């Protein structure tokens, strides 16, 4: 609470709209009046990560547009043989639903965190981590399947050679983000469970007082991972 007192340097209502934007950026000490230091830093990190994934998707677009060889049809490449027939993209669809569900549980964890309901927050965060781990597991299955079918970063039996490199690069980098997110979730969930944010126990690394805002900042990262998947799903799997 002390921090929010410090940061509200000018009492009274702050201007809204474009006038507010100008006032915030032109003001003393800090531009983001309602976002804390940690939250603003996470947003700026996510902005930089947006450019990283943007560049991956762009290089995929460039490779796909500049090759005279036909691009493999993802609908067929990622089909699974279930019950005697090929269901197109079914694994990817399940992965999408799993990741969206994990975003839902994460959003509710943030909500219960601000209500200071320690148990529910920790359980919802663990559920999020579990769904995230399931996602990575399905991705590992997908990679195994494609590799066994002969897809390599330099060649594949379905069409344009660039398909493999774009696939492994984009889904690999996204899977790494999910994996890091799961580890990050487990660490924060442990802190919630132990009551660090109720007792304002100081972090082992930053020595800053523990606050439930850490759950929201964790949530920003997790939702971003889901957000990136929305774009990968649209551009790589559906296009």
């Amino acid at each position, binding site marked *: 609470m002390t921090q*929010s007192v410090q940061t509200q340097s000018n009492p009274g209502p702050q201007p809204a709209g*474009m006038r*507010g*934007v100008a006032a915030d950026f032109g003001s003393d000490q800090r531009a*983001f009046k309602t976002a804390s230091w940690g939250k603003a830093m996470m947003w700026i990190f996510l902005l930089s990560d947006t450019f990283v994934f943007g560049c991956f998707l762009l290089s995929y677009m460039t490779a796909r547009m500049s090759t*005279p060889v036909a691009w493999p049809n993802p609908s067929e490449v990622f089909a699974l043989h279930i019950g005697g027939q090929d269901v197109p993209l079914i694994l990817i669809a399940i992965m999408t639903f799993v990741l969206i569900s994990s975003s839902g549980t994460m959003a509710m964890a943030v909500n219960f965190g601000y209500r200071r309901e320690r148990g529910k927050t920790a359980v919802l965060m663990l559920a999020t981590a579990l769904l995230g781990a399931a996602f990575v597991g399905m991705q590992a299955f997908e990679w195994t399947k494609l590799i066994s079918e002969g897809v390599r970063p330099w060649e594949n039996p379905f069409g344009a050679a660039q398909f493999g490199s774009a696939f492994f690069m984009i889904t690999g980098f996204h899977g790494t983000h999910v994996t890091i997110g799961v580890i990050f979730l487990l660490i924060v969930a442990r802190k919630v469970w132990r009551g660090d944010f109720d007792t304002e126990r100081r972090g082992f690394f930053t020595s800053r007082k523990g606050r439930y805002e850490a759950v929201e900042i964790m949530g920003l990262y997790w939702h*971003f991972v889901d957000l990136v998947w929305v774009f990968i799903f*649209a551009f790589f799997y*559906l296009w």
Partner: protein
Amino acid sequence: MSETTAHLQAQAQSGQHHPIRLYLVVWGLLFVLSAFSYMVDYLGIQGYLRWSLILLFMMLKAGLIVAVFMHMAWERLALVYAILLPPLLVLIFVALMVSESHYTIFTRLAFFGAAS
């Protein structure tokens, strides 16, 4: 969503407190939108209709996640603009690379023929 701006402002300043129902509704919407985008592929819709439907569902999903799950709808405009405007510059990069790709495929076809 009928709350007044002043109320939202007060909420934003004291942490993000929103009814759990809001998250469940958005969660449901994301499920429905994902099902729609999967149906685009399942039903085999092709051409411009396919691409515009994919983009439409993608933008709706991205908007819901950023606005509600990431609480961007309740942040001050300074943060919203600082974070959401820079990625639009990627579109210029897209235009550059589309032009570059056209040139690359043109030279490939002109010098190596259609088979390579």
